[in-house]
């Protein structure tokens, strides 16, 4: 294996391939930074280009863009509270608070370092145990996938709201929006009201930009106008301190492992991995009450999970031919067009190309760290631009993000509606993150649910007879309701102790 990896490095470090990896990382980072222009669409646009390249070079370009977009997505989450892509939504919770506290530099730096460590780990595992580890994904059938997504949604709902019912409401609403459009199985138009533009459904980017970008712009604008905007504390330093790095290492480790394990499941994707990893981190870490208040671990953990999941999603893609999400589905399409069929025989039939790809991922990770490290200084200075100039620019760029999806004015109007709804939800303490995740997962969740019912001939008991599914569903209920019940029990005990003390 070591000699195969060395020969892979020999290909990956060729000047042309190195240049392609650098360009891919830059483009991917830029795409990740710009809200709306996601990696899936970018990879799809690059497919015609890859025809003219050798297969190894084509794959190097696609994976470096994919990795780069994961790095870039965290930048806008941290600086302006607008996720650059879906897997960076959870980074907004702590990242933006850190930026407002004058710690944008350390936030960006730990995102880059955590991503590098996690990405390297993922590639190592892919190198050493890719095929056998991928086998565990085969234990997940439709019922397990449905239960996993319910688990993911319940963790988000429990993390991001103070009121469980409001979290359930927004989660359901996101899932309901996902049902708009033509049903892929039966062809039935659902909730289109005769409008042809709604037949393709409502893209999550439209809703995410509306609810995050437009709402954030208006909220910030009002605060600036009324003079109530918290003054952004002037940054004392741009770089990460050694103490902050040591403090983040356990979270990076846990985020890497959880992100990798979940990311390897076909269909799970980086988004679900980051939410689950963050929730588990909140349950396990010391001083969990600090997460959500601008704790650096709240950036380190999801960013590590994000990149670990991105690498992990290549395991089922290469070894089983199962894509992990939209971006890896496009990569699968590219592989098929290059006459490369992923699967158990990939390493035997196209070994040289696969090892070159794995080696290029090591190189890509290092390149991204080298590229992004000096950019931390540049990006952090964005925080010093007055909001009255920055917010209108963010508004325009976000609009272009929505427009570029399908050049439709209906999308723009939907984004406007989503923005107004997002503002109302934010003002009235309804969490938005579960809505977005529900919208992203809704289609896959429904597909898994219906497949499970087909297998069980219509019986819902299948979700309770399969051990993995049952475990996940029970965990989902516990994660959702246990914190509230424990808090009430604690209140009851304190009140009882106080009344006994008074007596």
């Amino acid at each position, binding site marked *: 294996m070591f000699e195969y990896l060395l020969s892979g490095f020999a290909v990956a470090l060729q000047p042309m391939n190195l240049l392609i990896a650098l360009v891919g990382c830059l483009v991917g980072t830029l795409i990740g930074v710009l809200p709306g*222009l996601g990696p899936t669409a970018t990879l799809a646009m690059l497919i015609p280009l890859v025809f003219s390249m050798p297969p190894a070079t084509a794959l190097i370009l696609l994976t470096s863009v994919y990795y780069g977009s994961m790095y870039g997505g965290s930048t806008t989450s941290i600086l302006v509270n607008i996720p650059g892509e879906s897997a960076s939504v959870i980074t907004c919770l702590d990242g933006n608070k850190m930026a407002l506290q004058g710690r944008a530099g350390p936030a960006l730096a730990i995102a880059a370092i955590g991503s590098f460590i996690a990405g390297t780990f993922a590639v190592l595992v892919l190198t050493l145990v890719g095929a056998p580890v991928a086998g565990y994904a085969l234990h997940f059938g439709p019922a397990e996938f449905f239960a996993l997504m319910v688990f993911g949604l319940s963790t988000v709902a429990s993390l991001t709201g103070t009121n469980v*019912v*409001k979290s*359930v*409401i927004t989660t*359901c*609403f996101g*899932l*309901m929006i996902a*049902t708009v459009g033509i*049903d892929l*199985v*039966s*062809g*039935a138009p*659902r*909730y289109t009201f005769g409008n042809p533009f709604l037949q393709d459904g409502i893209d999550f980017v439209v809703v995410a930009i509306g609810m995050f970008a*437009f709402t954030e*712009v*208006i909220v910030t*604008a*009002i605060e*600036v*106008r009324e003079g109530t905007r918290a003054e952004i504390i002037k940054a004392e330093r741009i770089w990460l301190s050694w103490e902050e790095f040591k403090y983040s290492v356990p979270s990076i480790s846990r985020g890497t492992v959880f992100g990798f394990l979940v990311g390897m499941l076909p269909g799970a994707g980086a988004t679900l991995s980051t939410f689950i990893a963050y929730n588990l981190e909140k349950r396990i870490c010391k001083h969990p009450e600090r997460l959500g208040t601008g704790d650096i671990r709240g950036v380190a953990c999801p960013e590590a999970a994000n990149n670990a999941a991105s690498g992990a999603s290549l395991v089922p893609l290469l070894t089983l031919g199962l894509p992990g999400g939209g971006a890896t589905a496009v990569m699968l399409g590219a592989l098929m067009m290059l006459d490369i069929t992923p699967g158990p025989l990939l390493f035997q039939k196209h070994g040289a190309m696969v090892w070159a790809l794995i080696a290029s991922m090591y190189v890509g990770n290092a390149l991204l760290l080298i590229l992004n490290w000096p950019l931390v200084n540049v990006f952090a200075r964005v925080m010093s631009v007055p*909001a*009255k*100039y920055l*917010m*209108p*620019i963010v*508004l*325009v*760029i976000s*609009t*272009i993000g929505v*427009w*570029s999806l399908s*050049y439709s*004015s209906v999308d*723009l*109007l939907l*984004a*406007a509606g989503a*923005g*107004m709804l997002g503002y109302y939800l934010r003002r*009235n303490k309804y969490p938005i993150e579960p809505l977005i995740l529900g919208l992203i997962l809704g289609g896959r*969740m*429904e597909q898994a*649910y*219906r497949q499970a*019912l*087909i297998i069980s*001939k*219509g019986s819902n008991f299948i979700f309770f007879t399969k051990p993995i599914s049952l475990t996940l569903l029970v965990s989902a209920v516990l994660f959702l309701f246990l914190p509230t019940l424990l808090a009430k029990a604690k209140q009851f005990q304190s009140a009882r102790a106080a009344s006994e003390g008074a007596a």
Partner: protein
Amino acid sequence: MSASVKGRRRNRLEGLAILLVAGGYLWEAHNVPDLFQMPGVPGPTTFPYLLGIVFAFAGLWLLVSPADLLAHRRQPAAEGRAEERPTPAKGLWTRLTTDWHFYTMWIVVVGYLAFMPFVGFPVATFVLLAVFTFLLGEARWWVIVGLALVVTTVIHLGFAKGLNVRLPLGVLESLLK
């Protein structure tokens, strides 16, 4: 009316609205023609029914609000005292005049999104940037106009030429082509 009472009333109104939306959602699911249902296979309405029921239940919970009812039963005296210190209510006209910036910003944003494809990106963006920067407190007209012009040009060139995004020229199309 005290703030807590107002909050509870808002929750109940929201619960009612959610129930209505859930009802409409379930009704639309019911209206999916039978020809799309395949025998022995969960059809296109299975998942929507499940979601609609959960959504309706959550709305009902918000409407009935058992937690608030319990709290009210335990502390009616405290509530009575709170009632004596109502928060001042703002009339519609007062709200419009004091919060006009807020409404204007939304009108500007929604107007931009609605009209940009027709008016064209350069013109719409220039107007948006100028108006929004003004609303955010910038009073120097040369800064407003200069910033709007430069940013519109840079963004248009960057996205249209650099990233190949098709931005509509709108009213400028006949001039530039």
